[in-house]
């Protein structure tokens, strides 16, 4: 695969790659949670869910 040689012209750093996996996974869950809560609250349009969104999304950000 020739194009890989241009893909890798930066040195990403081993530590940088590991932290991405860690932070990305946690942040991915948070993002997914926010999206899910938003989808549910959009459907129900209830205040309860909107407060729930705040309490769920905040600590995970």
């Amino acid at each position: 695969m020739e194009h890989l040689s241009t893909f890798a012209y930066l040195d990403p750093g081993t530590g940088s790659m590991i932290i991405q996996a860690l932070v990305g996974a946690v942040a991915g869950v948070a993002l997914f949670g926010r999206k899910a809560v938003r989808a549910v609250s959009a459907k129900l349009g209830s205040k309860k869910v909107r407060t729930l969104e705040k309490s769920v999304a905040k600590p995970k950000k």
Partner: protein
Amino acid sequence: MKDGPLTSSYRDPAGFVFLQDNIVYRQINKVAEADYKMLHDSGLYSALVSEELLVSHKEVTLKNLPVDKNRLTVIKPDAIPFISYPYEWSFPQLRDAGLLTLKIQQIALKHGMILKDSSAFNIQFVGKKPVLIDTLSFAIYEEGKPWEGYRQFCEHFLIPLAIAHFSTEQALTMLQTYLEGIPLSLAVGLLPKGAKWHKKGVMAHIYLHERLQRKHQGSGTKSASAPTRKVSRFSMEGLIASLESSLKAMTAPKNQTEWGEYYDFTNYDQKAFKDKAKLVEEYLNSLKQKPKMVWDLGANNGEFSELAAKLGAYTVAWDIDPKAVAANYLKHDDTDSLMLPLVQDIAAPSPSVGWELDERSSLFDRGPADVVLALAIIHHLSIGRNVPFPKVASTLAKIGKNIIIEFVPKEDSKVQQLLASRTDIFPEYDEEHFEAAMATHFKLVKKTAIKNSKRKLYLYTVR
């Protein structure tokens, strides 16, 4: 500038930027063929260009190109009126450039591509709008592969913003020294103790990042930690979202700078102000050739720069105070596309830096402008910074073909303020010496007294 490859364009084997007859072109190398094709075929290029997030280009056939077995094609990107550098941007400009990078990354992922790098130098401002200029930054995304530009993003955007957030915006000029971004290790040393608890993402993207980076330094054998390096698409999207919310949480510090509220508290006579504006407009209109490029030195929040922009000139509004530059940048009106606010200390102007001192151009190399406005700045240079008139005149001759300059005499209250706390060692600070110094480089075209003040406005044209 000379024809040939630009001295700043050597890092990426995918291609390079070159100049021919003063027009900027980008060569795409064969090695980047798959990526370049995918950029167009996936619809990513049109998605980005239609939103003005990426500079648009046309493929061209040029005659007289040297033989190059690596060349796939040549593109001609839309011209950027004035090239600026991250160390000349105010806080919100750097933040917007970072947010643009992340937005593009999100759109790229949707099209099966990824930004392989995230250098702040890949962003330019066209007026007040940031745009990505590196068409070759896109690579085909392979799920599981981490973002190679992640550390670069932290060091070019998140870290300088965090340091400025916790200290002052002046910290952003550090980027002139750290052209590859502010290193993680330096950030950890500079940020205050509580920083990691006080701002979103600082703990993860700076402190943990630095720790892991330090731990794994030199242990980079290919197989060592390969399994942990997988970053799923799910995580990649999370990572980008997390960086986005960290950047959005970074705000400019609230400390007061010298000029932040200049026009608010000044007792500047309204009549004099209006008369000055009228004269500047008159002078600009009187030029035989309509100016295309105007530099306003000491532009503050751009009040007078707007006069030039309204005449259709691309106007770079320089000021030493990052808060004034930010205020100008955040102000929106019909001159937005022609107004570029930038930070600059004319007494220590941006130098040529980088490889062979030739990678990023000095302020002088990016001139001269058709017109330089130097309004209410002479006393700050000659008394505030001890720069004698002949030296001011010689700098002006380097950066402008025509100069509209205001002379502020010693009896003016602003000059008296500067002299209040120091001995007056400036016996030659008067109109006569000022005019004599200017006369060595310029021809006097106009001279008018500004009403309701003791100030004078001059129009000079270079000899």
